[in-house]
């Protein structure tokens, strides 16, 4: 069977090409303990904050950070499976559960900003200037005004669900309540396009403002606080986790140096900071 010979020749050629192309890449990634997988939310990535923080950390420590930006819910799922080393997330209730169940250790307060309720200029539900987020949502529901939800288990979605719960209503399944299943930026684009209301973190809104026809209608309610924590994935549960790297990253983000970067980030571009550093503060001061 000469044909088989040809086939085996091709396979050998393939194996050679495979080794030639793969071997260098594999050896590059070989010092596994030098690589940290950071699972974080889209807001830290899309706001550009991580692009400022990570190079400083990498230079200082020699670690290489692989940022996987997903919703907070998915980030914690990755942590539960031991597929991430450290998390930077903003879904406090889910985080507490995550730590309580033993998946994470050393949860530390990093920073906060706030959520805002956005809507079209015409404001059909008349919520502009409303002080309470809860009342604003009630009005939106009463007016059957279109509301776009993330619907993706992200930190923003978790907060939104909590707010709806506080109103005693369940908007799911209502005609005026739609879930995009997309990231913050894309959800806002959809809301702008459809003249709907939505909830977003201020950072993402500021970054996207120029392309949106959406205004901030409700802000400043304590219930709209958006708080970020860093959590190390528990190495006792998952031995393959890079515990040393996770610890180094956690210590870095609460360090004076990183906190100073957080404090000033965005001032130049947007005129106001996007995040407020909170390391070492008493969580109670933020109402936690």
């Amino acid at each position, binding site marked *: 069977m*000469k*044909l088989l*010979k*040809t*086939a085996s020749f*091709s*396979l050998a*050629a*393939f194996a050679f*090409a*495979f080794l030639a*192309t*793969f071997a260098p*890449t*594999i050896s590059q*990634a*070989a010092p*596994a303990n030098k690589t940290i*997988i950071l699972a974080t939310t*889209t807001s830290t*990535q*899309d706001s*550009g904050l991580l*692009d400022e923080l*990570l190079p400083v950390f990498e230079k200082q420590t020699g670690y*290489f950070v*692989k*940022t*996987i*930006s997903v919703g907070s819910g998915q980030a914690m799922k990755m942590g539960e*499976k*031991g*597929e991430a080393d450290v998390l930077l997330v903003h879904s406090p209730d889910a985080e507490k559960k995550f730590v309580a169940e033993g998946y994470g250790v050393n949860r530390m307060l990093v920073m906060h900003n706030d959520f805002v309720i956005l809507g079209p200029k015409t404001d059909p539900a008349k919520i502009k200037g409303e002080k309470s987020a809860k009342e604003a949502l009630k009005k939106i529901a009463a007016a059957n005004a279109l509301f776009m939800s993330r619907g993706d288990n992200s930190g923003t979605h978790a907060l939104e669900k909590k707010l709806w719960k506080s109103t005693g209503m369940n908007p799911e399944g209502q005609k005026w309540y739609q879930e995009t299943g997309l*990231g*913050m*930026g*894309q959800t*806002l*684009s959809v809301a702008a396009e459809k003249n709907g209301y939505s909830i977003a973190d201020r950072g993402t809104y500021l*970054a*996207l403002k*120029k*392309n*949106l026809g959406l205004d901030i209608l409700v802000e400043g309610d304590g219930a709209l606080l958006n708080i970020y924590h860093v959590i190390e994935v528990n190495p006792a549960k*998952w031995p*393959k986790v890079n515990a040393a790297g996770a610890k180094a990253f956690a210590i870095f983000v609460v360090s004076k140096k990183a906190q100073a970067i957080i404090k000033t980030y965005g001032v130049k571009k947007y005129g106001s900071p996007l995040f407020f550093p909170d390391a070492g503060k008493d969580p109670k001061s933020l109402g936690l």
Partner: protein
Amino acid sequence: MDLILEGLIKAFQLIIALDAEVLGITWLSLKVSGVATFISVLIGISTGMIVALTRFPGKKFVVSVVNTGMGLPPVVVGLFVTIFLWRNGPLGFLDILYTPTAMIFAQAVIATPIVMGISIAALQNLPAKMRLQILSLGATRLQMVWILLREARLPLMAAVMAGFGGVISEVGASIMVGGNIKGYSRVLTTATVMETGKGNFDVAFALSIILLFLVFLVNFLFTIIQQRERPR
């Protein structure tokens, strides 16, 4: 309209200024999809040839499976490859999740059935008696395979182009197994998704134009090879 104009201007600026990050992203796209296509061509054409030139029970079934694979959704491939490459997954020991290597792996999985399916069709399309003719003229089997490949060059090059086009343009698998890590595993498609999410539509648009231009260049090159006059 403004956006389209802005996007074009931005694309032009990024190319003219030889923006280091954009160049890096473009180069990585080419490298990852190029290597993945190369692997898929080696596997796809060789196994495609075996399937096309031999007779065995269940051949129709195998060919239908391959043809189904031509429509393999990249996100499905991405999900499966991610699950396999997880640290605690069956191939976790390779430690290649969120690397360009993983992206090559996933893209090769996507492109191989495309190349293989078209190769099978191309080789089956050759006159059946041709093989006997070539052999009767005293050619070895290896020479016969070579002649058949040359004979089917046009559709085989189309297979290569389809495979490359399939992977350079896919985003679902690349973003899942590569992670869109800045300066490391970010390619044109994943960067476009990210910039869209950030609301930087002009940059996203510019990246799309660069991607289209890149695909055109590569296909132009392939087409030249394909349409070359046959040496007599």
